[in-house]
């Protein structure tokens, strides 16, 4: 065998050109990073209290370890930047990055452009969990412990688990998994509607939760979100090449030496965990998981080696901008962020769809 391999390789030698593989280019990474920086500076600068962008940049640089700058901000303004706006911007980055990464992962794993992080019932499960917690009125507003995120997180994960188990009972195809997700989501939504009808006094709080928000009380939400993002992103990024192999379908992927079901199980679990964590801190923010990965595909190509990392960067930046719009358009009132993501995102996406010449579907 080894002889055959060696003999084979001699016939192949002598080529002096090598193909370029699809991979994240420095330029693309630079564009993504620039979008994040612009979003962060805008998010920290714009608000009811006017603070100059250059002072914000200096204040940020000062916050970095080992650097010392005098931003010239008063203590009160510095506190607004560091204690109020910065945690919110960071949470926006994390939630946006997580949701678009999950969406991109689902789309690749299921080879379905319509897949989003809520495909396997996370939204319905989390919605039911949150609704039950809100109507039960446990720890309502008082004390440090808020059961709503926990209930939403648990509900989302239970829904995905049931969908996955039911989908695999129904057969081996991804279609049966998606159908199981739809069934589970419908069932849980029906349950949620029932609970909602029976507790109409909690209606407003529940609707507000469903429409989503990026709201922080200090650093607790970003701190809660960070480990989920880091761990799941590490898993998904490690599998980015495997997801490119899955693009030729399960049978051909298997003939290329890959176990498609195992790859799918791992990445879908990671993406679901990430999405459940995002939903638990910010409610149901729709559309991001679909439009950000597709915009990235249209702009930079379809390989997951490019789509996954850039979805993280652009998803984060997009969410910070959406949150900025949510809190400034009707200031001092806040728009639900789910409204903003769809209101800004849909026309933008149609524009991209119309102008891009790439065939990515």
């Amino acid at each position: 065998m080894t002889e055959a391999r060696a003999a084979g390789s001699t016939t192949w030698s002598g080529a002096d050109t090598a193909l370029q593989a699809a991979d994240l280019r420095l330029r693309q990474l630079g564009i993504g990073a620039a979008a994040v920086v612009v979003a962060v500076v805008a998010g920290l600068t714009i608000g009811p209290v006017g603070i100059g962008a250059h002072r914000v940049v200096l204040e940020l640089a000062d916050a970095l370890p080992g650097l010392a700058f005098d931003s010239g901000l008063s203590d009160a303004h510095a506190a607004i930047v560091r204690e109020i706006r910065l945690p919110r911007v960071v949470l926006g980055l994390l939630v946006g990055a997580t949701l678009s990464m999950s969406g991109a992962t689902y789309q690749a794993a299921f080879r379905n452009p319509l897949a989003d992080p809520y495909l396997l019932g996370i939204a319905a499960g989390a919605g039911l969990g949150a609704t039950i917690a809100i109507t039960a009125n446990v720890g309502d507003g008082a004390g440090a412990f808020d059961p709503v995120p926990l209930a939403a997180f648990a509900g989302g994960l239970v829904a995905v688990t049931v969908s996955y188990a039911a989908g695999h009972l129904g057969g081996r195809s991804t279609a049966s998994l998606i159908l199981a997700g739809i069934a589970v989501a419908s069932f849980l939504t029906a349950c949620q509607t029932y609970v909602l009808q029976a507790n109409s006094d909690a209606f407003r709080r529940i609707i507000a939760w469903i429409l989503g928000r990026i709201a922080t009380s200090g650093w607790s939400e970003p701190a809660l979100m960070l480990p989920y993002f880091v761990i799941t992103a590490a898993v998904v990024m490690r599998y980015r090449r495997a997801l490119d192999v899955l693009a030729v379908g399960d049978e051909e992927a298997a003939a290329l030496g890959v176990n498609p079901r195992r790859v799918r199980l791992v990445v879908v679990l990671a993406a679901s965990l990430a999405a459940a964590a995002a939903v638990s801190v910010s409610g149901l923010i729709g559309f991001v998981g679909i439009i950000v990965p597709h915009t990235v595909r249209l702009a930079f190509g379809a390989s997951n080696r490019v789509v996954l990392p850039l979805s993280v960067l652009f998803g984060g930046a997009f969410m910070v901008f959406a949150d900025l719009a949510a809190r400034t358009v009707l200031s001092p009132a806040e728009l639900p962020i789910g409204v903003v993501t769809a209101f800004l995102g849909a026309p933008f996406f149609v524009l991209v769809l119309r102008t891009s010449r790439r065939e990515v579907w």
Partner: protein
Amino acid sequence: MAVRIQSVAVQLDSTQVLRSVDLDVAAGEWVNVIGPNGAGKTTLLRAVLGLVPFRGSIDINGLRDRRRSARARHVAYVPQTPVIPPGMLVADYVLLGRTPHRGVFAAETVTDRRIAAEVLERLDLGGFSDRTVQSLSGGERQRTVLARALAQQTEVVLLDEPTTALDLGHQQDVLELVETLRRERGLTVIATLHDLTLAARYGDRVAVLAGGRIAQCGRPAEVLTVETIAEHFGAHVRVIDDPEGPVIVPTSAPAPEFGAAEFAALATSKES
């Protein structure tokens, strides 16, 4: 022996697709598997690839390692209807063939990229590397899929109906290319083919898969007879001898050997 298939049986759901298949293919040999629709030709290839559970044994160059990636370093597959991934460039598609060598988490090495470049060049696809696979014509696409299989650098290549959806000229192009590559690189080829004349013209032996077994196997002129084709395909044909192999021509039923005299005899026997 490059591929030794012994007493292989495959059951899919409740259907026994293959009952007991025995087939030996020597290193560097090209065997065409023919048979009527539903005979299990594709299933046989899938069994060799380890994609369906089977009873019996399939030995590929004495390979002991049962892992998929190990098998994929020895057997490459060109499916009948390949899934064309939307938006994927030809270069990336061909590089997928390097997956079993690089490991699924690792980046391609310079060697991987060089091999892919050479395969593309060899199959006259050099100028296509920046195109999407989707945008290619049927013939170019088939060559691209073949390029991916060749980039796997396996000793054995399995082709499932490689000429489907191609016009006659492109059918010949693809099969000539396989023949040339086989000679250049000593490939062992197992192909399924619908077109019996093409099956006779290319390759060393023809194996008839019917009733879940290899009913006949041998040189095309021995196997592709009027009787065999009538028995296994239910087809009425005339077989014309040609220096390059038998030519199979469909005729209107009944077959010419069954002439007017036999008809008369049949009619008389019924009457009596």
